[in-house]
């Protein structure tokens, strides 16, 4: 597609439930990133995929968070046993190649844990 697509755009879930957030990057973009943003804050890095290399998971806040990228394209971020502090906007971005290109962001998924 023309841009990075994220779904759902909004998700309300009960504390303790698992959620899956999906990201469809721009076709041909080899790098894919997940960030989250709490209200009024900057972006917090979560995980980074680059081609067939092992992902950089260093930003995942706990073992309840995991992500995969299938076939070098679509990515799914899974949060298990959600907590209220997980409430945030989760943003996905993709880029052509490392370092010298800007990221294209999706519109994000607003997650609310009640």
């Amino acid at each position: 597609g023309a841009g990075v697509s994220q779904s759902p755009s909004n998700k309300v879930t009960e504390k303790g439930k698992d959620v899956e957030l999906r990201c469809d990057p721009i076709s041909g973009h080899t790098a894919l990133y997940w960030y989250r943003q709490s209200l009024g804050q900057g972006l917090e890095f979560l995980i980074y995929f680059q081609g067939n290399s092992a992902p950089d998971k260093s930003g995942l806040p706990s073992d309840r968070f995991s992500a995969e990228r299938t076939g070098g394209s679509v990515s799914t971020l899974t949060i298990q046993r959600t907590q209220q502090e997980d409430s945030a906007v989760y943003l996905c971005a993709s880029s052509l190649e490392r370092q010298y290109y800007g990221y294209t962001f999706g519109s994000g998924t607003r997650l609310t844990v009640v």
Partner: protein
Amino acid sequence: SQQGEEDPQALSIQEGENATMNCSYKTSINNLQWYRQNSGRGLVHLILIRSNEREKHSGRLRVTLDTSKKSSSLLITASRAADTASYFCATVPGGTSGSRLTFGEGTQLTVNP
């Protein structure tokens, strides 16, 4: 901790005036990028400046980079109400530290008609 720190945190100006936002960072960089965010959702890439560049222009945007001071500035000339948004600087580390962007906390710009 955030690599980039924007200054000021909030800026309110009148339409037609220029807006200047500053960004400081701590470690060596490969490049620095500026993004705009409307309504707390997706970010839009504005401009990228490499570590060996000192100034870049794009339309009404002018970005400078001073690697000796580890700082950058974003100037928006002849501002419009539609420029109202949050602006973030983000850095890509130098060397082989990977290419992920580290974002600052952002500057909230309000342009009053």
